[in-house]
């Protein structure tokens, strides 16, 4: 079985400041990792994913994440946030040989002017 823990349920941040959203996973086998964003009253949209290769993954809208196998983490970062980054962010994991995406509980990012 796999599980995902997002350590922060809410992260308030000022505009143009950096933000880091923490994600830890648990799995006994190799995994693929994803970050999705959900803007208010919308569906989820992929920000970035790690399947293999370089552990630093760059995504859309200036986001990046680093896969750390020893710490079973996949933290998401952005060096300078905008008001438009206000949204719910979900970390998700699936087993490399599996077919079920398991989501974390989400982190609400509120960007303040």
């Amino acid at each position: 079985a796999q599980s995902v823990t997002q350590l922060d349920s809410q992260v308030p941040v000022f505009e143009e400041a950096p933000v880091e959203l923490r994600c830890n996973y648990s799995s006994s086998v190799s995994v693929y990792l994803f970050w999705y964003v959900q803007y208010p009253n919308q569906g989820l949209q992929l920000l970035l994913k790690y399947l293999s290769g370089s552990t630093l993954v760059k995504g859309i809208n200036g986001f990046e994440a680093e896969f750390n196998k020893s710490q079973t983490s996949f933290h998401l970062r952005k060096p300078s946030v905008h008001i438009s980054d206000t949204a719910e962010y979900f970390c998700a994991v699936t087993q490399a040989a599996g077919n079920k995406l398991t989501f974390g509980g989400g982190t609400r990012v509120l960007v303040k002017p």
Partner: protein
Amino acid sequence: DTAVSQTPKYLVTQMGNDKSIKCEQNLGHDTMYWYKQDSKKFLKIMFSYNNKELIINETVPNRFSPKSPDKAHLNLHINSLELGDSAVYFCASSQESVDTQYFGPGTRLTVL
């Protein structure tokens, strides 16, 4: 062009009624999913179909029955609705089961 569409966007109904939510994807994907997002934003998979065949059926009450008439459509029928069924239901699709999933806009179901 809408990649994954759902109808209706909002659904308000009484306890005990039967309702359906429709989902269509025009991405040519082989796999489709239904998720339930509760009031605390927790997102959990309910069902997954690959080429019209059920491959994931989580511990969902059998009042929920998915139907896939073809690989571009996955509908969700719910019998005898209960208060606890109130949630946002998302449809999604992907080319492979481990690939990026594309989500629809969601259907907000409110059971009174």
